[in-house]
């Protein structure tokens, strides 16, 4: 397992474990993150993402193992660490009855900013979040994308070197999400280290490295491209037929009866995707099965898996 050097790497986690009674929420996780890296975590609900982040923030004590954030041990040095770490949670913790500017000021003061520095950071955050001209709008009346950028601004008002983002983009539309990621990469360019958890595959694709979490364990960790090469069990075939619904029905039936080794069958608009152990081997079988049942097959093509295909495959294997 990777060890990492707490004096060099901003986040180092060694054999970290958290048990709640009989339940192991985080199960011997080890990894480290480079300075300025955008490191993503993908995992089902309950995989241990939030629990790990809470340990890294010093909000929860590990059962065993260690973690270092900027060289500090969050379990004992949370106070010293606080000034250098930012955190944005799933529920943007903004005060809805305050204006955008008031929220920024409130967080600034909570982090001990005052006077000129506070005014300067306020202006920078408003600019960054694209809220110039909307300073006096009540937060409750801002749309999802604005709120999200405001929440990020509040989380980084004290210019932290490490930022934890826990599902920061839930329920935000694609355009706002892209804008948000521009901000994340802007921070990373300035040397800020970002650990982000997400449910969206397209976002995971944007991370330099991605960790798959399942049942408290880190089951894979690599660049999105490398994950696709290493962790996909089986190959994806895309089937185009004159009647996709009929094709789907037949393939589901074949799967149930064990006539074809189909790991997954799913409708994608006018196509059906099927995961098979070997694309070349089963291409013809699938076409034949459909043709015999009177479904006209236009094409059966071997396509590259998406990160979601790979993730689901890795979770099932683990």
């Amino acid at each position, binding site marked *: 397992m990777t060890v990492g050097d707490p004096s060099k790497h901003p986040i180092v986690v060694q054999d970290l474990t958290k048990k709640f009674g009989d339940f192991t929420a985080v199960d011997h996780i080890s990894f480290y993150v480079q300075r300025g890296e955008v490191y993503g975590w993908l995992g089902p609900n309950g995989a241990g993402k939030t629990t790990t982040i809470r340990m890294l923030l010093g909000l929860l004590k590990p059962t065993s193992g260690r973690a270092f954030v900027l060289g500090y041990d969050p379990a004992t040095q949370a106070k010293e660490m606080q000034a250098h770490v930012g955190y944005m949670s799933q529920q943007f913790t903004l005060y809805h009855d305050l204006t955008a500017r008031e929220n920024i000021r409130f967080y600034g003061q909570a982090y001990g900013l005052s006077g000129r520095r506070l005014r300067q950071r306020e202006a920078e955050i408003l600019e960054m979040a694209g809220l110039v001209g909307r300073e006096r709008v009540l937060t409750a009346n801002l749309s999802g994308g604005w709120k999200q950028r405001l929440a990020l601004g509040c989380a980084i008002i004290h210019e932290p070197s490490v930022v934890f983002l826990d599902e920061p983009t839930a*329920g935000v539309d694609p*355009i706002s999400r892209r804008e948000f990621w521009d901000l994340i990469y802007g921070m990373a360019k300035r040397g800020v280290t970002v650990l982000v958890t997400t449910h969206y595959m397209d976002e995971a694709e*944007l991370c330099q490295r991605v960790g798959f979490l399942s049942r408290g364990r880190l089951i894979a960790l690599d660049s999105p491209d490398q994950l696709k090469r290493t962790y996909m069990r089986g190959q994806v075939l895309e089937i185009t037929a004159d009647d996709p619904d009929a094709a789907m029905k037949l393939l589901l039936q074949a799967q149930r009866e064990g006539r074809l080794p189909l790991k997954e069958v799913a409708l*994608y608009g006018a196509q059906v995707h099927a995961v098979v152990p070997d694309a070349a081997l089963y291409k013809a079988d699938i076409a034949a099965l459909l043709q015999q049942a009177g479904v006209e097959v236009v094409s059966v093509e071997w396509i590259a898996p998406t990160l*979601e295909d790979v993730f689901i495959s890795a979770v099932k294997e683990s």
Partner: protein
Amino acid sequence: MDTEITIRTTNLVKRFHTRQGDVTAVDGVTLQVRRGETYGLIGPDGAGKTTTTRVILGLLRRTAGESQILGFDSMRDAYEIRHRVGYIAQQFALPPDLTVRENLEFFGRLHGVDTATQGQRIAELLEFAGLNEFERRQAGRLSGGMKKKLALACSLVHEPEVLLLDEPTLGVDPVSRREFWNLLGYLRAEKGVTIFVCTPYMDEAERCTWVGLMYEGKLIAQDTPAVIKTMVPGRLLEFIPSEFVAAKHLVASMEGILEVQTYGVMLHVFVDDVVRRRAEIEARLAEQGITCSQMREITPRMEEAFISLIRRQRLRTAEDGADDSG
């Protein structure tokens, strides 16, 4: 009446009166959903997706235009619609202190399903949603993904021909999200259920047979996912520049560049001519000491098309605004 059309709206308008003045949430929407189709209504926050869905269902009164489901008028025939349509609202809440089974029974009674039929359907639905083992668990104690599946099962107790789902997988993890969509795929293929779904997820839009893109109350594009993906300008180059911001501005100012989108550390550049512009971009950036890695042509996905279509619509709106004021 054309029985093949399940949902139909014609010049549908919904205006709200607010303290700040009138807001037109739905602005002349005309759409048709054929029987057995999975229609995805996509668009940014506040585009009017939820309002459109509620007006179609008759939960909100329309201001003008027409809306029907299965030939029944949304406003006049609410009762007929209720019995033939299943609906999951965006912020739905199942009674948390009722068990999974009790929830299904509750919705069965609500829709007037008789006890004998109900027993059999509930057994089928528990199996369908993979909730057999959790029959006796309180709904409030289910995971997020299981709650969504239970909500789907509850919306199916009266065997509706049409399902309207408003962002049904919001906040759900990828595994549960895929399972949920596989259930929808099953309903489509095995039962021929017509599905109308609002979603902010572009990968979900790819699973629909037909997609409507909504922006500021209007439908700005409507077609199959395959066709929507061709509604981008030119062809798409992807690469990682060594100097991101500088490269972005430089490339945007070059000839033959139709649009620049950012994608993490990558730039997505739409060009009129791949071979020519690729060489020009590399040369131009090299002059400034910027290198490009992993340059390749990629096929635009729904997300790139969505961003491009919305951007162009915004530009058009801005230009119209400028014309009006001038």
